[in-house]
């Protein structure tokens, strides 16, 4: 019954959206206008919802973009409460010399709510997707935020650290490869400055102990982004982690380049000195072109070598695809990749997916 209710409410009330740093091409250098989280991703603000129809989607109207399609608009509750959530699934297809596989994966089902009081905000994402299409009634992301000025935010709670580019393709080398995948929320305290040109953040975090993850990494991360010519952003990020006397350090650079309102390019390079003292390189890049409003052609590329001295640790992929926002609340991304995992084979495997995302 509990699971049924969660799923039911998720379908009714879902509200989530990924972060889209490429929105800089529309002069959005920071995430906080459209997302409740200052580092982007997750629950959309009321302003963000209007952007989903006016800037992001092929079709749709202002009212359609609102929570519950505007059916429960109420000025009083809107002033202190924001509810949303999302349902996200993936159809995956792989084809190599030895295997051919198609798989449907439900990735995320949950409800997210933000309660505001003056300069304080409490946010929680409720719903943990588990194997077998089960959803556990548990808050996987939650934080208390204080915003004393337009520029400054302080967050305490459990969330994914702000490191590198927060992109929706969370399985790529710079996200999953470095440990910033979905489900890698950490307990942390974070401070951020969101300026007109400069964006700086720093946080102290600790891995959440689970049955599977017994070791805890304590880490400090810092990120500096600088906006030039309004639609170009360059960033530098560092990570200093410590886990049972072993350390890892990551140094990265990233760029979000909005050449025009239609053409954009994102790229990130991270050099990791891992817990095993091995030096690894992690990289992704994404080139996008919006051919009609809401429909983007994409070229993606990733590279991961966890040990630069060991060829067997290489994973690289390149592919083409599209992302389509037909109407507010809907988001589809389809990518066809050629992927090589050196540990398995030197041959490239066909790897394709269709990601389907419904959010309120």
């Amino acid at each position, binding site marked *: 019954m509990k699971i049924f209710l969660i799923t039911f409410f998720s379908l009714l009330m879902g509200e989530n959206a990924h972060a889209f740093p490429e929105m800089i091409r*529309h*002069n*959005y*250098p*920071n*995430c*906080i*206008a*459209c997302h409740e989280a200052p580092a982007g991703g997750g629950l959309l*603000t*009321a*302003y963000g919802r*209007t952007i989903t129809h*006016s*800037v992001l989607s092929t079709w749709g109207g*202002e009212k359609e973009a609102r929570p519950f399609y505007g059916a429960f608009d109420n000025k009083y509750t809107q002033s202190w409460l924001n509810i949303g959530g999302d349902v996200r699934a993936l159809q995956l297809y792989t084809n190599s010399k030895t295997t051919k596989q198609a798989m449907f994966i439900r990735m995320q089902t949950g409800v997210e709510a933000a309660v505001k009081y003056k300069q304080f905000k409490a946010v929680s994402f409720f719903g943990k997707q588990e194997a077998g299409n089960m959803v556990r009634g548990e808050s996987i992301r939650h934080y208390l935020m204080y*915003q004393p000025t*337009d*520029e400054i935010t302080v967050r305490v709670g459990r969330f994914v650290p702000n490191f590198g580019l927060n992109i929706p393709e969370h399985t790529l080398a710079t996200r999953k490869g470095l440990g910033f995948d979905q489900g890698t929320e950490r307990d942390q305290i974070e401070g951020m400055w*969101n*300026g*007109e040109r400069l964006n700086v953040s720093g946080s102290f975090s600790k891995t959440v102990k689970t049955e599977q993850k017994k070791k805890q990494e304590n880490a400090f991360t810092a990120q500096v982004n600088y906006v030039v010519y*309004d639609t170009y952003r360059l960033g530098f990020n560092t990570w200093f982690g410590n886990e049972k006397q072993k350390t890892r350090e990551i140094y990265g650079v990233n760029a979000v380049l909005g050449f025009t*309102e239609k053409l954009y390019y994102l790229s990130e390079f991270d050099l990791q000195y891992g817990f095993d003292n091995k030096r690894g390189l992690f990289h992704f890049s994404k080139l996008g072109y919006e051919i009609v409003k809401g429909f983007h052609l994409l070229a993606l590329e990733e590279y991961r070598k966890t040990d630069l001295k060991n060829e067997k640790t290489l994973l690289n992929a390149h592919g083409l695809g599209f992302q389509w926002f037909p109407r507010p609340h809907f988001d589809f991304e389809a990518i066809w990749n050629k992927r090589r995992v050196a540990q398995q084979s030197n041959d490239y495997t066909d790897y394709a997916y269709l990601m389907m995302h419904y959010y309120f």
Partner: protein
Amino acid sequence: MKFLIVLTATVFNFAFSAPKPLVSIPAKGKTTFEAVGKPAMIKIKGESPSAAALISFTDSNTSLSAILNLELLKTGIDMRDDHMKEKYLETKKFPEAKLVIATLKIPSTWSASPAPIKDQDFDGILTLHGKDVPVKGVFSLNDKKIAQAEFKIKLTDFNIEIPEYLGVKVAEVVTIKTEIQFE
């Protein structure tokens, strides 16, 4: 008699050689504005075709007058344009903005021998939203007869309400740039 002929010719010559005003080419140039939306520091940029402008010369003074049709302003988002024109600029009541710079330090002989004028400070009067407010800015005019002016305005000086939409509030000061091609 000879003196009279020379004098008459000189006077006529002066009259005929009095510099013609510079008239803008409507299809060329543009006017832009830039505002910042807080808290996310969104850059809100608007653009319209060039203002209709005239630079007039007399022996003692050069002046500029430019009129902008506010209905032609666009920010790239239709809904934002509607809010800007209907709620804040009230373009139905106040369809135009007018900038008058009474004195520009440009010699009356400029048309005959155009020489670049760079970053000249100016004092002008901007009429917007039914209010006349003094503005200070920078003016340039190159030898291809392209003028550029930049100045900042405070929205509240013009009785324009500070735009706010769903938690994003526009900063009070807006930067205006205009580029005008003259014939």
